[in-house]
């Protein structure tokens, strides 16, 4: 087991890009090695050591590596990018693109995350105890596929475009979401415990379950009747009818 503890040295105003902070990249490295790894502040190339105090205990492969981040990372982007295994625990807020393209391992955030968390995620688990920003588990501009696998859980709320272009995997939002969750869903599962608006537009596959209220329904769904899901009765819709979509939308 290797544990790496990372704390900001000072308040960060200009966004830091720190895609090196993943178990894959830090596993087996010493404090000194990690400190000398690249990070960017705006247009300035710097090192992780300049920005963060880093403590390393033990040495292990990525799968047995735990990164613990203490403090405010609200201006640190791309943490956990592409991670394949290991643990990443953030006791604070984080900036955009958390866990983008991750395919394994586990990220837990105690605070809030900014937009594009779990973008193009392929596997692993992302747990956000606070709120999420826009485009949770979505895709990159122009790509036809967003999240493909893995699981994202948000205990708070998420903003617009949750799971845009999702092709697989699962997103659970315990609170409310903004507009257009599951837009162009092509095979993912989204569960919204709270309220939302305009869910499931252009869905071709996948499932969206809304347990709260739907503020505005898209006029693209066919009401199929009621269905019992685990003891709860839902209105079951299929769509999007425009493209003969096979998506399922359940509204309580």
């Amino acid at each position, binding site marked *: 087991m290797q544990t790496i503890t990372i704390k900001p040295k000072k308040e960060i105003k*200009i966004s830091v890009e720190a895609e090196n902070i993943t178990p894959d990249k830090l596993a087996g490295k010493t404090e000194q090695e990690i400190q000398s790894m690249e990070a960017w502040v*705006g*247009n300035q190339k710097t090192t992780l050591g300049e920005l963060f105090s880093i403590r390393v205990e033990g040495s292990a492969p990525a799968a047995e590596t735990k990164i613990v981040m203490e403090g405010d990372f609200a201006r640190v982007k791309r943490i956990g990018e592409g991670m394949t295994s290991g643990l990443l625990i953030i006791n604070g807020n984080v900036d955009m693109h958390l866990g983008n393209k991750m395919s394994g391992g586990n990220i837990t955030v105690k605070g809030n995350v900014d937009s*594009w968390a779990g973008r193009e995620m392929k596997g692993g688990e992302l747990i956000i105890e606070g709120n999420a920003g826009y485009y949770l588990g979505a895709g990159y501009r122009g790509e036809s596929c967003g999240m493909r696998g893995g699981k994202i859980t948000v205990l708070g709320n998420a903003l617009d475009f949750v799971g845009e272009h999702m092709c697989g995997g699962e997103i659970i939002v315990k609170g409310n979401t903004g507009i257009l969750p599951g837009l162009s869903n092509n095979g993912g599962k989204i569960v919204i415990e709270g309220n939302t608006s*305009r869910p499931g*537009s252009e869905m071709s596959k996948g499932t969206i379950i809304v347990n709260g209220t739907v503020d505005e329904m*898209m006029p693209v769904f*066919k009401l199929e009747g009621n269905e019992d899901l685990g003891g709860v009765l839902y209105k079951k819709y299929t769509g999007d*009818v*425009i493209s003969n979509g096979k998506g399922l939308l359940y509204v309580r």
Partner: protein
Amino acid sequence: MTVITDALCPFCGCLCDDLTIVVEDNKITDVKQACKLGTAKIMGHHRIKAPMMRKDKNSEFTEVSYEEAINEAAKILSNSKRPLLYGWASSVCEAHKKGILLAEELGAIIDNTATVCHAPSTLAVHEKGLPSATLGQIKNRADVIVFWGSNPVHAHPRHMGRYSVFAKGLFTEKGRKGRKVIVVDVRKTETANMADEFVQVQQGSDYLVVSALRSILSGHADVVPDTVGGVPKEQLIKIVEVLKTAKFVSIFFGMGLTQSKSMYKNIDNAISLTFELNSFTKCVITPMRGHYNVTGFGQVCAWETGYATAVDFARGAPYYNPGETAANDVLLRKETDAAMIIAGDAGAHFPADSVRHLARIPVVQIDPYWNPTTEVSNVVIPVAICGVEVAGTAYRMDGVSLRMRKMVEPAHPPDTEILEKITERVRELRGE
């Protein structure tokens, strides 16, 4: 007296190229064929006379030499860790190229005024493409014209005469009489008053209305409720009928779509409607671009960087993600630590919080006119007016590029020259 014919108008995205300009003693004394907007710009307004600087935003400006101002601008920009180069719409493509090079040198973010106008249209194009046509194709063929969330009577006064509603062409010899005009808006505008069919949408509901039209078009009227976004179902059915039985449909859209609730997804959806209508008829869709060369910046930026705008060069390679790298994103997050505003007016057209941040950081302005950006600037460099005093390239709203003429000799240097000198000075400061 000199008479310049076939001159181009440096105001809106219509880029009218049939103006006649009368010049006497290097002064424009008459503008013919232009609309109120074009005439006002070409006839000219009060100008900033000389470069100005000040240390503190609340103190008065002092006039300085161009050299001093350029030197200070270069210092401010090269000391910045997160510089923003914003504006560009009221400038020619030749300046855009210089600006992109400067952004590369600085590791800056470069963004243009589309960010508060049609950049969402570009986001939609990433999703669905853009089935469009040149304006003459529409003039010669379109028998149904739709204006959605746009008000050309105010924003593009000659559009309807030259290209759309009234224009006559090979297959549209009857002009207005042979056309059906549909206007979709949240309020009854002057454009709506000229329509054969006005569709009043509840503010923010455009996305739902487009989807309802698509559902009806695909034979699923059954899933559409009695009213959608305030529009009765019967009217939606009627419109679908008009659209699918037309010979050539042209949809024009404006900020009513880009700026309302579902933002770029409105356009994304409208492009899908366009796509699907092509199974029944010919249909094209075109953004009503605001500034005369806001389209040009997107074109130049795309061929130089691969992305149309909001490009972040911080790490030496272009990175693009509006919502993260657009001008207001970085201003509102208070990330930007210096800005250059050129040929666009962030002070007037950005939300208060963004302007508030500009008021806190060093700002360089390059512009012919005194405007709200001047009020928050430290260094102000006046330049010649592109398309009036400087020749160069501009792109019409339909992506057709044209060469702007020079009408009179400028008293100020062109922005290309200022940008070149700033770039040179930046290199010197960095010891390159």
